[in-house]
């Protein structure tokens, strides 16, 4: 589904990604871990199309398409979803209206009929249950005054509405207490199918107790320096990242 080859990216003069290689197949869950500043969030942003980053080398193929050539909205329409580490507050735009615009623009781009208000509300109510989110929250301005947990649940709600092929969760666990973490993980798990894939970007192992990864990759200095199974995440939890840094230094 997703094939990343030798991806290198910089922001300003600072190169952050130094040759990432990653293959993600349908039905898989990949965890990207690593110490702060290793490039995890940059990778997520580059995949979603954030303009601040410049790709200097490499290829990203998503379902046979060159992802790097596509505008952020076209990536979303093709089925890429980024759950933000820091969801943006937009006063004056309600989540409901925003989602309706998004869903209908995506349908239109696929040559499908837009949803009428009734069908939209019906689908919305189903998806709200997944992340235990209240409609009154969705009537309010997008993320404005939301708690950390509410913002993250709203991200997963949007993921549920858009039904992406590839969901990238950028530090979705940050700022969540254990109950909110469980709700968010539950939502993600419910959305998993054989035909979609998830990339979980996280600093800590604890989210991976609830969203079980098939593969765990360690990102350090802009490169994947180690890959393994979920046991690798447990090892990182127990031993920290220093041994990885030592291994890299020796190599």
């Amino acid at each position, binding site marked *: 589904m997703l094939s990343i080859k030798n991806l290198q990216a910089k922001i300003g003069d600072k190169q952050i990604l130094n040759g990432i290689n990653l293959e993600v197949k349908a039905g898989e869950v990949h965890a990207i871990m690593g110490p702060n500043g290793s490039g995890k969030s940059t990778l997520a942003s580059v995949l*979603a*199309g*954030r*303009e601040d980053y410049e790709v200097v080398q490499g290829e990203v193929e998503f379902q046979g398409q060159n992802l790097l050539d596509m*505008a*952020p*909205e076209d*990536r*979303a*329409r093709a089925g890429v*979803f*980024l759950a*933000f580490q820091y*969801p*943006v*507050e*937009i*006063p*004056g*735009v309600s989540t409901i209206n*925003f*989602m309706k*615009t*998004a*869903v209908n*623009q*995506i349908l239109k*781009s696929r040559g499908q009929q837009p949803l009428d208000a009734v069908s939209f509300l019906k689908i919305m109510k189903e998806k709200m249950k997944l992340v235990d989110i209240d409609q009154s929250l969705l009537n309010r*301005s997008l993320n404005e005054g939301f708690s950390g947990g509410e913002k993250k649940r709203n991200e997963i709600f*949007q993921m549920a509405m*858009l039904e992406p092929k590839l969901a990238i969760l950028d530090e979705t666990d940050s700022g969540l207490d254990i109950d909110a973490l469980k709700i968010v993980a539950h939502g993600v798990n419910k959305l998993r199918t054989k035909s979609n894939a998830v990339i979980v970007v996280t600093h800590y192992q604890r989210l991976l107790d609830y969203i079980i990864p098939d593969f765990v990759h360690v990102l350090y200095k802009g490169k994947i320096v180690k890959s393994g199974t979920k046991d690798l995440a447990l090892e990182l939890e127990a031993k920290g990242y220093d041994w990885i840094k030592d291994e890299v230094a020796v190599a």
Partner: protein
Amino acid sequence: MSVTVKEKNASAEVKNLIDKSVSLNPAVISIRKEALEAFQKLGLPDKKAEEYRHTPITSLLQRDFDYDALLSKPSDLDPKEYFIPSVKGNIIVLINGVYSSAHSSVISPADEVHITNLSEALAGGDTMALEHFAKYADVKSDAFTAWNTASWNHGVFIRIPENAIVQTPILIYHIHDARAGQVMSASRNLFVIGRHSEVTIIEKFDSAGLSHHFSNTVTEAVVSENAHLELYSIQNDAGSRYQVGLTHIHQAGSSLVNTFTFTLNGKLIRNNLQLSLDGEGIESHMFGLYLITDDTVADNHTTVDHRKPNSFSNEIYKGIMDGNSKGVFNGKIYVRPQAQKTNAFQSNKNILLSDKATVNTKPQLEIWADDVKCSHGCTTGQLDSEALFYLQTRGINKETARAMMLYAFAIEVLNNVKHAELKTYIDQLVSERLHTNF
């Protein structure tokens, strides 16, 4: 008497213009004379004049107007195309500053609303008109006010008796016919709202033709105890409009005033809005929205004068500047020594969409009382690129994302419009402007 002309300035031409205007009623001759003297003393504001520092109105009047060729012949213009179709009400039309009875129609019952040409009311000895005319707009501090007071001939006098809840709004259409040549008008309005009464007045400014045209309007509104005035100004003239307008609202105790100023088009629009809170328990809200592009200059100078204790004023002005346009906001709040327990709030927020667009914003609070709550804030920025990206990552194209965010910015002002049909109308104007056709 001669005018001292500093630099090259249209003051002398304006003085001639004033001399040519015919006083229709003897009752106000002394007021005219004083105003002319004040005008001669002040002269048109030059570049150094603090109140007009960012608004080059005097040099534009000099550059763009030919005072010998100003149009004074009657117009055959049909004003209906400028009417807001969905908003029914009492309609008053002024064409080139001339009150047009033929195009005006008052549908409210006579015991609710009394509307006439102000010059007729004064000439006929209307006691209310005589009592309040020229009592509030200060000719000594502003040359345009002096010019208007010295030279106006027509205008709207609205008198709402006590205890009248006026069900239908009053719409005043100010239209310039600039098809055959340049136009200058100086119209004068007086609104007297009786105790416990309630009325909505909507002013809309338009023009036909391509020639430059200038309006200098002065409106005085007296809002009595417990009365409620909703006052709207819709400035969306696609023609070459230069405009200076003063609206001075004098509020008595426990009155409520909401003003709305929408500036969407025009060449140069200068709105002077002054509220005098001359009683206790007063509530005043001033809302403004300016969405401008090309070379438009939109300048809002507002003053709230808290003269007595225990009143509340709130001001929210928002602007979106594109192209070469220029926004100016100046918000004065005075809290007099005796005006204890005053609550006064002011906010001015701006978005610049192009590198060439500018805005100058200046809050000016002068507080002489010590037990008050006053706050002000102003921001100027560009569209939040992180928010744009966020919307795009959900599949929304950039143009729509941009429009959604601009509309969301404007909605705070729109949401306060009470009159439903008017709200829909303005919402459409704003949506068209922001291309929110998603």
